[in-house]
């Protein structure tokens, strides 16, 4: 009985020491960022979504007709989409309204993307949305129309030398 206790304690130490020689798992965040392949999109004609990350939205302003179905779906979930009047001449947008999204309230569920019948609201892999002024969390339609740049470079890989980011 004593022998098994001693053996189990030594095995625990051996496991601890063995893990010293594995690669460390930490992602060195601001210098190195995770690579995310694509954002969440929804195709209305075939009623299929393609898998992707649900980050910041992107609005294609040339396709938006201001039907406000996205605002109607979001009304009881997070109430973060407001239709606002936009300047300019929009041929297919009669009332010149487009969605503005308040990221202080958005829960990133993606039902607004599913609801859009004109394939103009998708989600991108952008997740760095923090600001220092709370009012900047409300993104206007023109801010949403800018496609974010790709910043990620590494992925988490499990392999023989330990799971690490490479």
């Amino acid at each position, binding site marked *: 009985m004593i022998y098994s206790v001693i053996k189990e304690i030594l095995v*625990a130490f051996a496991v*601890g020491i063995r893990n010293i020689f594995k690669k460390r*798992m930490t992602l060195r965040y601001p210098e190195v960022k995770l690579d995310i392949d694509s954002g*969440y999109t929804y195709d209305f004609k075939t009623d299929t979504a393609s*898998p992707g990350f649900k980050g910041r939205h992107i609005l294609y302003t040339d396709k938006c007709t201001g039907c406000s179905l996205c605002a109607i779906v979001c009304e009881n979930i997070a109430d973060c989409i407001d239709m606002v009047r936009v300047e300019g001449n929009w041929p297919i947008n009669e009332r010149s309204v487009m969605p503005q999204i308040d990221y202080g309230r958005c829960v990133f*569920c993606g*039902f607004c993307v599913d609801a859009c019948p004109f394939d103009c609201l998708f989600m991108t892999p952008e997740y760095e949305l923090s600001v220092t002024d709370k009012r900047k969390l409300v993104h206007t339609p023109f801010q949403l129309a800018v496609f974010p740049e790709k910043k990620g470079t590494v992925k988490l890989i*499990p392999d023989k030398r330990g799971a690490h980011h490479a």
Partner: protein
Amino acid sequence: MQVVNQGGDQMVLHVGPQHPGSGHFRIIVTIDGDYIVAAKPDPGYVHRGAEKMAEYRTYIQNIPHLERPVIIDATGITLPYVLAAERILDVESPERAQYIRMIMAELNRIISHLYWLAIYGIFLGHSTMFMWPMGDRELFIDLAESIGGTRVTFSFVVPGGVRNDIPEGFKERALKTFQYFEKRIKEYEEIFFNNPLMKSRTVGIGILKKQNAIKLGITGPNLRASGIDSDTRKDEPYCLYDEVNFDIPVYQEGDSYARCMVRLKELQQSMDIIRQVLDRMKPGPIKHVIRGVMRGEPGEAFVRTEAARGTMFFHIVSDGERFPYRVKISVPSFRNLIGMSHLLVGSRLADMPAVYWSLDYWPVEADK
């Protein structure tokens, strides 16, 4: 922490919500020396009326809303809700959707059990057992994110099927992750579960006998650790669980160590289920599209599934409108709470973290 003197030999301690050893709830323990004489849990700090709020949202809008109580096991609560909603709306999901739902449910079970294991390690003072499961959990969260789109609250299961298909390359990534994780389970056993110091703190502590478990209505892995072979996935199969082979780990002793081992073995079984499902899946449609406003016939639906913590039970009453009339949820954590006050009596004050967390009580889920 507040100490109130009762007079006499006993002392009443409020192990309150602001304490490193409790969650968002309070246990009022009465101690006599080092032994606990009475324990009364005091939940309700996180109650926000989720069931009432569900009556003002449509069937689709309820999905992100009801996901929030059990944020760590999101599919565990979304899946029974959607199954009940499907019975009311009278739709059926295609086969591939059922298989994908099973994959997400089992991934969520692994994620939730790894979080439990991490906190159990730190309660016993083992800081490595906090870092390793949290790190390995990242691999599974990455897998779930590649399907669901977000890391914790996917809102992935909808009435009619699932929202999107699994991406390509998922099967190879999943198999590589499982191969890596099976070696890690062996390392967890060697450093923690076979560690004589850990065993001396959990073996024989907080024993829940079989007849008490049935009498108190305990559910989930706690029930299986007391010798009762009961799992909703085998008793009332939902979602094509009857087409895959898996075992239910059952232990007879009923102490905290048995509850730990049940959850450890369930990790392995979940990985086996996902492997079999990935082999059996055939290409096909993933969603039965519902056109128009989702409105069901007046009626009721009852559904019972196995979430990570136990049996989750949904009862939806509909009166023909687009909002449900009543949504009643019976969560496993709230039903295990009586077990906590039963088990803590007679154990030492120093054993309180080991016993209380081995029941895997999630305060937000219990308060809804």
